[in-house]
């Protein structure tokens, strides 16, 4: 990622009109009094894919000190966010500067469907986030993989597997051993011949090894027993691995890095996997979603340039002219599916993400620390100590036991929804219901299991 110095950010002070000042004083201005908490979710949903709260330029200028730069131009910044082209038409010199600087590279920002109150909240968040980030000295950034680490992982990925060499060396050694045994036998025969003894009986390998085993039967039995146990255990374990894919990291047509997008650039999971909140599928983003940013970001730090070119090839975009190629035959990107449930399992993302408010990382692990998609292991998931509401599970990820374990542990937020409130009323209204309710609430909480989350028909139909 190309880092730009902040030198270009000129603080242009412009006189402001008294009328504008008065209008916004009535509200206290857009730069004051917003709700940073609300602003955070709005920012992540609408802005984070292009803007950072620091000075860094992602696909648009960093927003640090935006209040200083736009001081007094409250109405204009609202207009600028809601309809950039219209705001530019106002002829404001600062906007003109911005336009000249960024539009040729990144294109126009799309008008955002946010109200003035929303903007107030967002700006409040930008201010707090920028302030918070400053003293920490980029601690959040440090938690991400560094570019070197990412690079190393890519190289590691490209290295070939060592197992094959073990097999080759092993077979060469076996051949040598057999040959040595033959030589030893020939030599022994030669000695016997010279000493007038009868030659060593012409035994097959099998017969000779049987004789050897008989001669060392105690040793062979112990070793044999050990090997039997060993292979039974290994065999059992490998059979139990069938259909379990933790640690699975398939090659992908595009060497996409979650570490860069999600961790370093703080793009929310739902920005790309947007259907997770409303559908059973989280979805793989379509290329037009990539183009929201990559229309502007054409270079990457490691292999970005060649990898980003693959998106352009798919959708038909010419990075040199910065425009789409007319009449281009678009080619979809064929990804390898990472998290793959069998067809007889019905899993609904929205039930877990929107209703259960489960963090993506609880099932997908610290995906922000990976490059291409990866099925996490239980350890990887459980090691995210700082994850709020993390349900630690022992079973291996994406097995049924793992699902059931979570359904057994996870509590349902009963108060938060009219649906559960109604259910609660129904339980209270009947005798059977009250009894059941007492059983459920014995430990003071209702888990998914207690509300039916262990029933076959909830996931299999």
């Amino acid at each position, binding site marked *: 990622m190309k880092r730009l110095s902040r030198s270009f950010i000129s603080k242009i002070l412009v006189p402001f009109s008294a009328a504008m000042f008065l209008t916004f004083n009535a509200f206290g201005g857009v730069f004051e009094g917003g709700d940073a908490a609300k602003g955070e979710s709005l920012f992540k949903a609408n802005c984070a894919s292009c803007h950072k709260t620091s000075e860094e330029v992602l696909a648009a200028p960093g927003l640090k000190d935006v209040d200083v730069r736009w001081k007094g131009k409250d109405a204009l910044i609202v207009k600028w966010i809601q309809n950039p082209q219209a705001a530019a038409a106002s002829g404001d010199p600062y906007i003109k500067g911005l336009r000249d600087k960024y539009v040729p590279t990144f294109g126009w920002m799309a008008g955002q469907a946010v109200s003035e109150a929303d903007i107030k909240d967002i700006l409040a968040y930008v201010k707090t986030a920028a302030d918070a980030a400053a003293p920490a000295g980029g601690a959040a950034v440090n938690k991400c993989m560094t570019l070197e680490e990412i690079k190393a992982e890519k190289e590691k990925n490209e290295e070939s597997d060592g197992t094959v060499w073990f097999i080759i060396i092993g077979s060469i050694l076996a051949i040598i051993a057999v040959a040595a045994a033959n030589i030893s036998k020939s030599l022994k025969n030669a000695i016997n011949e010279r000493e007038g003894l009868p030659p060593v009986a012409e035994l097959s390998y099998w017969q000779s090894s049987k004789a050897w085993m008989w001669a060392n039967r105690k040793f062979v039995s112990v070793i044999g027993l050990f090997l039997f146990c060993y292979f039974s255990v290994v065999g059992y374990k490998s059979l139990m691995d*069938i259909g379990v894919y933790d640690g699975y990291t398939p090659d992908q047509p595009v060497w996409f890095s979650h570490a860069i997008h999600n961790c370093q650039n703080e793009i929310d999971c739902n920005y790309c996997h947007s259907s997770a909140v409303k559908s059973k599928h989280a979805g793989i983003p*379509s290329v037009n979603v990539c183009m929201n940013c990559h229309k502007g970001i054409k270079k990457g730090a490691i292999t970005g340039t060649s990898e980003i070119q693959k998106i352009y090839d798919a959708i038909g975009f010419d990075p040199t002219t910065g425009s789409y190629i007319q009449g281009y035959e*678009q080619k979809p*990107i064929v*990804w390898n599916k990472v998290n793959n449930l069998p067809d*007889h399992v019905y899993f609904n993302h*929205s039930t877990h993400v929107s209703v259960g408010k489960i963090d993506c990382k609880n099932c997908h692990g610290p995906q922000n620390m990976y490059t291409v998609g990866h099925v996490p292991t239980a350890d990887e998931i459980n090691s995210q100590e700082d994850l709020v509401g993390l349900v630690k599970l022992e079973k291996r990820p994406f097995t049924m036991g793992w699902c059931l374990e979570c359904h057994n542990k996870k509590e349902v937020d009963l108060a938060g929804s009219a649906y559960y409130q109604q259910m609660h009323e129904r339980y209270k209204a009947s005798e059977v219901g009250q009894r059941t309710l007492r059983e459920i609430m014995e430990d003071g909480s209702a888990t998914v299991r207690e509300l039916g989350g262990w029933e076959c*028909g909830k996931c*299999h*139909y």
Partner: protein
Amino acid sequence: MGITKKYWSSLDELQNTAAAQEALTSEFKRDQSVQDFLNDENLNESNTGRRDFLKFMGFGLAAATLAACETPVVKSIPYVVKPEEITPGVANYYASTYYDGNDYGNLLVKTREGRPIHIKGNKVHGIAGGGLNSRINASVLGLYDGARLKGPKKGGADIDWNSLDSELKAALAAANNIRIVSNTVISPSTQRAINEFSAKYAGKVKHTQYDTVSYSALAKAYGGSVPTYDFSKAKTIVSIAADFLGTWLMPAAFTSQYAQTRKPEGEWMSKHYQFESNMSLTGSNSDVRTAIKPSQQGAIAAALYAAVTGGSASGVEGADAAIASAAAALKANAGASLVVAGSNDPNVQAIVAALNTALNNDGTTIDKKSPLNLFRGSDEGMAALVDEMNSGSVDVLIVYGVNPSYSWMNADKFNSGLQKVKTSICFNLFADETSSRCTYMAPDHHYLESWNDYSPMKGRTDLAQPTINPLYNSRYAQESFLRWSDNADSYYDYMRATHNGGYTAAMLKSDNNWNTAVHNGTFAAAVAVAAMVTPVATDATGAAAPAAPAAAPVAAEAPAAPSMNIGEAMAAVSSAKSGEWEVTFYQKVTMGAGNHANNAMLQETPDPITKVTWDNYVTMAPADMTEMGLETYIGQCDCASLVTVTVNGKSITLPAMPVPGQKRKTLGIALGYGRGAGNEEIGKAAYQTGRAGVHLTEGDKRQTIGGNAYPLVAMNGGHASYTSSDVTVAAAAGTYSIATTQMHATVMGRDSVIKETVIATYLAEKGAKRGEASYNLAVTLPVHADVNKDGTIDVNDRQSVRDADLWRDHPVEGVGHRWGMTIDLSSCLGCGACITACHTENNVPVVGKDEVLRHRDMHWMRIDRYFSSEHQTIQIADTLANTKEATEKGTIGAYREMENPEENPRTVHMPMMCQHCNHAPCETVCPVAATVHSNEGLNNMAYNRCIGTRYCANNCPYKVRRFNWFNYVTNDKFAMVNPAQDDTLRMVLNPDVTVRTRGVMEKCSMCQQRIQAGKTEAKRNGTTVLDGMIQTACAEACPTQAIVFGDLNDATSKNAERANSVRSYHALEEVGIQPNIYYMTKVRNIEATEA
């Protein structure tokens, strides 16, 4: 008091023959004994040695193990540019319209990731509540049929559209006589395109419209257009052989209207008299059904007219009592009654029209002012066109939306005429009977791929919108007309222009209004009937008249008064010729006019009356068959007798099917079968498939399903006549196997399955609590304890079934959700729309005729049809003794009469699916706990757990569990019938429901996927699950609201209200398994004495 009746599902069960007794004891037919199997000589040829067996076994085991270790790499391909409205995994619904020349319906099309997968009625904006029938909701399969034409063709070879256009334009320019033959065109824009075409070739074009099944006599009686009917306003309904609930005019709409007044809870209940020869779906639902000969239809109408107008009429044999009763009821409800007739005889229709006028029904139940635009075809015009073609004077023939080489009564003559036409072109989607004979095939888009506008009746225009991009290189027929008129517009633009002030008012000029109309699928705008007529086609002389200007909206005009002289009509019907044998040609509810021959789902949907799948047959009265020595026991064997029926000199040989209620000495033959007699490419499922799964052949041609009865239809006074008295019938050599679905689900003498009563009894006990009404008493069991404390233990010591229970209670009542259904037997008409809706929703496999013969049909829901006859012979004898008929026969004669109740039985249709018992017997016997109870009252089935012991099916008292015998998706046996085996048809599968594999048990899941989705939606939106938010496919498809689904724990829900009503009961309540499905007692609008 309740009615004690004996219910029987087949004649043999009634007569208790040996065969029936055997069938009762074995659920499945004993196909072959072990002895037979071992003695089979062919067995030795398939010799496998022990060592070979072990080798294969070992290899197989190793291979399977190795294969399982391989990690499959699954590809995932997202859109490049995702359409904004599509979210993967979330269905979109689009309003659209179905019209195929025979059926009409307003739809909502469910699409997933851009593929239409399910069709339901447009309940908000549709005609009469948007009811659909099975033909329409199964029509989604037609879209994906792999046999569809992939592009334009000339003489069997591919051609591109440009060459086709230039060649055709040359042919048109050189032509003197251009003829268009189509079904009734009800699309204003299509009509405009045809008009533009006529104007371009002014003086040469003539447009002939004919309907596959004609209603020309009805239209004639009303001055050219069929009026609209409203059955919901009729207190007395008399139908003379009109199957208005199954196939007549707009059955989907009529079904909804009719059912509104068939619920006894309403202010009043309509009384329905039916006079007919075949037992039709409508007849089976009537209160008073009288079997008549087809030739008596006119006489019945005349007698009714005479009785109503105070004239005198000669009696009608065997129907006088019913006529008197019907006439009295009609007179009493003048202005709120309705008489309809299915006959295509203008005299009969004229009398019926006059009768309705005399009854003051015009303007209430009959609306002549908003006539239908449907069915304006002319049989005479078509016959004239065929003559013209044969004279060799037609240069270009354009065939649009019809298939005359199959469905025209004189198809041979049409075909010979077609050979004399210089250039012919057909827009049909398949290389069917007609298009394969035409010079060019120019396939139109499927209706789910098309924009269109339809004006089914005056004052209403519906829109169809595409729900998928065209799958093949097809083109709008309308665009073809435009191209040949040198107009380069796309049909969409052309259609929008139509509604910009051309034919309709300019209300849709604004994009906003237009979008609303597309969203709703309809808009109220008067398209004048006159505008719907090709100008030249009305010219009787055949000389060309100039095309009417397209722009001027034509003022609506009221249809002319009936032109028939009633006296002449009365005279004509009185001299109607009767014959020893008479025949009726009818449409089957599942097949209609034959447009869906390639639809495997419809072929396998059982006929509502005979329960036969995959076939047509001759329906006969059982007594006639016995007289002729024909086999009346239609079990699952090669035993149906073949008969040859000769009508007007043309013969057809079909199996004979005994149908109770069929008038003696009459026959019924279904139209719409025998498609593809020339081995045309009309779809794999349109041909008979044998045991091995390959098509059966005769010579080099594949065998058709059933025979084509259209050639037996004759022209009578310029109207196609669907009855005939010129009939002979003779037994033919050989037998034939017919696949029926009901033989293996006998009622086993458990009469508590069905409860019914009469209206007077119902009303008298209306206020009773559930379980207290005499016709619906709560079930108690005699117990060995002194319950009534009278000191002795005797039969009076009875306890409620609930108290004598084996099972532990599942805490579902009053707790959380309790999903359930109520099924009103009074409103269930047996149409079968629920069956096909269930099929497409739940990926129910189609298994083919051979498997149905083995009772391995996979229907998750079926509709049991029971006939009933009387137990209480003495009382009935008294009743009979009071009738003229019985008096003549004497008491003994009356008793003897009662031994043949099948002459006119009463019918009940009962939808049957998994009852989701709270104390389910299937759950306790499952050794692997694959079927278990949910805390929401559902009986869940986990397929991946099931090991196929089938204990559950054995233990199910309702016999609703279906064992998956084969891998229907890959097994070659089903390659011709199962949609999942076709590369394109597979796209119709619902991605939310597992496609089950071999060796598991399956059954109704109460659309678990919809329940889960509905709950998630409620939770996501932070709301409760509102009543009606979740609908099962069957409840949604039911045009009569006989099936209502909902949460029984939600006291305010419609379902809970119905479940607590005085009429509701559980089927087989005495077993004590507490189902979550309630049935509601059928109430008949008859006198207690008639019961």
